[in-house]
């Protein structure tokens, strides 16, 4: 029996878990990393891919928060198109949110999502189950069965669990099942039917406001409950200065809390809403400059653990309506890496090592899934970056079915050269010289 093997030669490798930040070769055999180091000696005849000049190889990026929309909303996105978008966005795995129709509160739905993902043969899917039946916030879902069916975490989707007692039980029970709770924090009694951040801009535009406090209060409540129960809690798409303070205070008390931010909350403010473009309508809403600055600080000081797209695809018909009638959400999978390189790495806010922590190491740790490392024995999940590639975002060319992005037309420095999942290239970027070579990385040879 012959081993399928391939050598990735001469690339710059960033693998913080193994203390590597330099030129190194990687030998992939049967979907795993079997050797890692400079100038590797391999068996004669082993196929070699010369890594293109300037490219950086990282442990595969994992998107903590993606709405794949199937089953139920196939007009927005399917598992297959969502995963194609993930591959093009440099992700080798995604966590899929449970707010489908029917909701993923049942082993059957988890199985369906996993089957569709297996059929697509692109990036890995880690299903996230619903914390309550139908995400109604009333009764605990069968979390044990969801865990057995393949869910790696549970979430309340896009609706908070209003009942604090139920949230306490959710945390305790999920923790017993070995799963973190991924928490959308919003006090809907305070946001009411708001559509934009409550502040000067919404007031001037006549848009109903969603106060920052609505997010702060629920983050504070759930961080406190995490401390009380000792159960792991992950705050999704954190967007306010106050919520960040709550997480910081929880971490200072050694509560098992973590949090993520999205690229749009790091780069856009509610000033963008004049013109009423519904592509800027997102929940949590775009906040103010002081919040953006706090989030950048939180990325630097380690309070923030992950960057996630919160990819929420919508059909253009759904977004082409009055601002207050449009659904919330941004299709983010294909712009995360370019935004991070252009806005966080090149201006010097973060190092590439820190970016790998935010996009690979911490997501793998929080979800308890494989990845985050290129050490010997790890799955051959690799994100290849082209940090200086000039990129112009073109929503019309998205692999996603959706086009709802506020970044269309943005000129950015840095992109994805290739995505390798289990030793097989699932995406290579034709605008990177030599990246096509990665296409020879395939387990089908």
């Amino acid at each position, binding site marked *: 029996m012959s081993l399928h093997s391939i050598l990735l030669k001469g690339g710059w490798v960033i693998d913080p878990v193994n203390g590597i930040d330099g030129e190194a070769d990687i030998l992939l055999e049967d979907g795993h990393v079997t050797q890692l180091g400079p100038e590797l000696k391999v068996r004669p005849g082993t196929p070699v891919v010369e890594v293109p000049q300037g490219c950086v190889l990282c442990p595969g990026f994992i998107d903590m928060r993606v709405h794949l929309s199937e089953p139920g909303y196939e007009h927005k996105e399917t598992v297959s198109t969502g995963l194609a978008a993930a591959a093009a966005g440099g992700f080798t795995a995604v966590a899929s949110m449970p707010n489908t129709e029917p909701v993923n509160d049942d082993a059957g739905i988890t199985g369906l999502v996993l089957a569709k993902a297996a059929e697509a043969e692109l990036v890995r899917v880690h299903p996230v189950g619903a914390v309550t039946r139908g995400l109604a916030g009333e009764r605990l879902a069968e979390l044990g069965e969801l865990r057995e069916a393949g869910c790696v975490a549970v979430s309340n989707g896009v609706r908070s669990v209003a009942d604090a007692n139920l949230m306490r039980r959710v945390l305790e029970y999920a923790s017993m099942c070995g799963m973190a709770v991924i928490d959308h924090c919003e006090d809907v009694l305070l946001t009411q039917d708001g559509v934009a951040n*409550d*502040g*000067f*801009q*919404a*007031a*001037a*535009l*006549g*848009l*109903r*406001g969603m106060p920052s406090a609505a997010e702060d209060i629920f983050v504070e409540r759930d961080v406190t409950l995490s401390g009380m129960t000792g159960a792991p809690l992950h705050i999704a798409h954190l967007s306010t200065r106050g919520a960040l303070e709550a997480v910081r205070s929880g971490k200072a008390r050694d509560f098992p809390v973590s949090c993520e931010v999205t690229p749009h909350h790091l780069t856009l403010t509610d000033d963008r809403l004049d*013109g*009423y473009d519904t592509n800027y309508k997102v929940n949590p809403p775009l906040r103010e400059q002081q919040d953006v600055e706090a989030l950048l600080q939180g990325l630097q000081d380690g309070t923030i653990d992950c960057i996630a797209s919160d990819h929420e695809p919508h059909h253009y*018909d759904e977004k*082409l*309506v*009055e*601002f*207050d*009638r449009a659904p919330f959400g941004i299709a983010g999978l294909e712009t995360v890496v370019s935004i991070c390189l252009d806005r966080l790495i090149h201006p010097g806010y973060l190092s590439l090592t820190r970016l790998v922590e935010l996009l690979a190491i911490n997501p793998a740790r929080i979800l308890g899934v494989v990845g985050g490392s290129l050490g010997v024995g790890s799955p051959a999940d690799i994100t290849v970056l082209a940090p200086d590639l000039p990129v112009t975002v073109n929503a019309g060319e998205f692999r996603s079915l959706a086009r709802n992005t506020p970044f269309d037309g943005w000129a950015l420095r840095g992109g994805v050269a290739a995505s390798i999942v289990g030793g097989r290239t699932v995406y290579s970027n034709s605008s990177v010289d030599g990246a096509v070579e990665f296409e020879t990385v395939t387990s089908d040879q």
Partner: protein
Amino acid sequence: MSQQADSSLGDPAGPLVLGTTVGLRTKDLLGIGDLSSEEILLILDTAEAMKEVGTRPIKKVPALRGRTVVNLFFEPSTRTRMSFEIAEKRLSADTLNMTASGLSVVKGETLVDTVRNLGAMAPDLIIVRHASAGAGHVVARLCSAGVINAGDGMHEHPTQALLDALTIRQHKGRFDGLKVSIIGDLLHSRVFRSNLLLLQKLGADVCACAPTTLMLSGMNRFGVRSTTSVDEAVDGADVIMLLRIQLERMRGHFIPSLREYFQRFGMTTDRLRLAKPDVIIMHPGPLNRGVEIASEVADGPYSVILEQVANGVAVRMAVLYLLAGGHQG
């Protein structure tokens, strides 16, 4: 101006005599925020000329003959819709009225499809009233017709602010340094937002007064003096503008009762003693007598409420004329 106009368009001003040769910079009037102070004054000057038409035995000029104007009202309106319609007819435009109950939206058609279909019939101007802020922007993006915002949610109602300004100018002759106090439900009011922008552009000293629950978020960034004391707002005021308190606001916990609102914020003859002796009282209507305004004030000597209504027609004629006939773009 009309003498220089392209003769192929006909003579848009007809027998009107207008002392200006400039139009508005844009094809639409979506909000006061888009207008310069010069453009605001141009509209007011044009409206003065239009007022004269309303005093003639035959109240009609041919300025917009052959132009099609659609009144697209997704929200109920009596005053504004009638005012636009009279203005259109006095300018000889062909008018079409579409109100919420008659629109395909009740059959599930989207705003975008309604407007695209309307646009395919090539109207010259569309007047839009809609419950969603920014609805006028959607319409303006989708069709080449000029769009006049007749009220979009809580955002703006520019022709209301213009008719209020015309009324103020007729009584006070100026805006600079004038103390204008706006009292009532500021939060939900598009009339407040448009008036605030307009009065600030023309140099008035605006004071905004409401219970804290009905103030706007980020009030300090609007550059307006605000107070919860109605006496402070009335003290020395040249103009007092009252805004409607809607009954349903009690359900949102904004005010405990209409009774308490009237006691603390309602405009009474007693409270008015603090104002300038020549104060004028304004209200965009419809009135809630005994809530934001006592009947004695609404019907009293300081009230200019019906003049506002009359000026509404002249201001809308001016805007229609400047966008359909006088626009040089």
